[in-house]
């Protein structure tokens, strides 16, 4: 008969007090005729086995590309490959620093991303509080279902819709503005408007989805807190500021810290589908720049260098955000 360590643990007849660890190991070895490692392997091999396909795919599609980063230090020539291309040290990075538009590209990225983070926090919280004030459950649910509809559509479709709606000649948005005597504005073709249109349309797409988490936090606030506040003479507005918001604070802090990792993600899919050469000045972000350099102009080494810089900075921000989320909101990834 085989007695496994795990079985012993379940029944716990041999606790630490009655049998010290060495004695238990001794017992196991005698019963099974195996040493410790073999026994662990016997017990755990199915768990290793289950991870094989996942690990294989992660190695192939995440870790192998990470090795491809050495291209950033090469003058990469496609038909010579990674091993045949000559190394040129930090030249790609020098090129990057000397590139005239690079400062603007980093500025655009962070400008759009930070505005998106701020608006993406403020709007869903406000809407969640307002939705929570609705008394009829079915009205609340209907509104909720409608507001996160855009979240489920791709930026390709939404861009098609936005281009149509915002068109200066026939778009419905400019027609409505026309009623108020505003001259047609070419929202997607003007450097003054473009970044703000990106932020507004991103908020429009994502705010409904964002309300889900905040609504859940709202419903878990103890109702007796509101009653106590009302007894103390707090009106609705004071209740919102002194009961609702503090009750939501942990989840707000969590969402904010997790979003810090996104400061270099200004939204490639959205901007790529909506921008055009006339607005590159205000619209070009790191990801679109990497795409144009790498895929369209085949400057693999240079594009990889730009991408690497972004990956490193993002890595620092994402790590920081997880550390902060752990410290401030006790959030753990796994």
């Amino acid at each position, binding site marked *: 008969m085989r007695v496994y360590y795990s079985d012993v643990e379940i029944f716990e007849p041999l606790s630490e007090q009655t049998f010290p660890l060495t004695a238990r190991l001794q017992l196991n070895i005698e019963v099974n005729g195996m040493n410790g490692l073999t026994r662990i392997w016997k017990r755990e091999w199915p768990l290793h086995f289950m991870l094989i396909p996942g690990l294989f795919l992660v190695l192939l599609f*995440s870790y192998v590309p990470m090795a491809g980063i050495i291209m950033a230090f090469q003058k990469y020539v496609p038909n010579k490959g990674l091993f045949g291309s000559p190394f040129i040290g930090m030249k790609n990075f020098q090129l990057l620093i000397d590139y005239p538009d690079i400062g603007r590209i980093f500025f655009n990225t962070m400008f759009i991303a930070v505005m998106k983070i701020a608006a993406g926090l403020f709007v869903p919280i406000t809407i969640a509080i307002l939705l929570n004030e609705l008394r009829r459950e079915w*009205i609340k649910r209907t*509104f909720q279902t409608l507001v996160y509809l855009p979240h489920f559509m791709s930026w390709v479709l939404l861009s098609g819709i936005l281009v*149509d709606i915002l068109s200066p000649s026939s778009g419905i948005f400019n027609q409505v503005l026309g009623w108020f005597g505003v001259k047609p504005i070419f929202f997607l073709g003007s450097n003054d408007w473009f970044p703000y249109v990106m932020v507004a349309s991103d908020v429009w797409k994502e705010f409904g989805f964002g309300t889900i988490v905040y609504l859940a936090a709202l419903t878990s606030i103890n109702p007796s807190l509101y009653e106590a506040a009302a007894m103390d003479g707090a009106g609705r507005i004071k209740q919102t500021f002194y009961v609702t918001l503090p009750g939501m604070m942990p989840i707000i802090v969590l969402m904010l810290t997790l979003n810090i990792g996104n400061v270099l993600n200004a939204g490639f899919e959205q901007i790529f589908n909506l921008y055009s050469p006339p607005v590159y000045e205000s619209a070009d972000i790191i990801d679109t720049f990497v795409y144009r350099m790498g895929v369209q102009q085949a400057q693999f080494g240079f594009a990889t260098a730009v991408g690497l810089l972004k990956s490193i900075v993002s890595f620092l921000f994402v790590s920081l955000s997880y550390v902060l989320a752990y410290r401030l909101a006790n959030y753990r990834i*796994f």
Partner: protein
Amino acid sequence: MITDRSLGRRVFIAGNFTFLFLISFLCLMPIMHILAISFSSGAAAAAGKVSLWPVDFTTAAYDNVFGKPEYLRAFWVSIQRVLLGTALSMALMIVTAYPLSKDPRQFRLRTFYAWVFVFTILFSGGLIPTYLTVKNLGMIDTLWALVLPTAIPVFNVILLLNFYRNLPKELEESSRIDGAGHFKTLWKIYVPLSLPALATTGLFTVVGHWNSWFDGMLYMNHTENYPLQTFLQTVIIKMDFRFIKAEQAELMVKLSDRTSRAAQIFVAAFPILIVYPFLQRFFIKGIVMGSVKE
């Protein structure tokens, strides 16, 4: 709760309702506008007469779209990638999350393995090295390029493993005592109990695959391999005729007039419009579960 029926309160309730109604309308309006355009005549649409209701009702745009083999073929590629991609991702997710949900005492290398997966969220090789990897594997212009690189969704694995961990330990222990191994425990205990979490992640995988267009553009050299969203990206947004042969150019012009564009957008959005309201019960539970942990 103390009910308040003062005038101020009533004004607030009415104002709040109106405001939220307008906000909801703002989210629905663009789709309704596109739908109205798609059912209007080309002349009315071009003149900007259409708002939320079709003008000179006609289904010509839809006849046009459904009569084109290019659109239908792209639709079919999308269906294939959704089916294959979702099946693969779900299977991988279920088996990957199980070992990672174990306590390190039960599975010694668990923390190490978990970091191997989590690190891929924190850091990536970037666009170009990933593209070259897929290319070197000979997957360009195959369905595998759309399915395999994203087959293991690490975020969903984390969501599922946290769900597994909240299941009562006693269930697993009793199944182990009854002689079931890890595989049987996973299949007979964990999978049936985690159906809400699986429905959530499954929905997101389906929507993700359906909406994905960039990988199609990156990995497909021939337009006939484009999934629907990539096809629409080139036809509707970029109006890119570079890949189109001369005899197809006329068709492309037809497909890119305003009513046809609207019809194509609506047809591509339609599957999602019908699926998502039904699954909302599941996914609200799932999202909240994944983001707010004890």
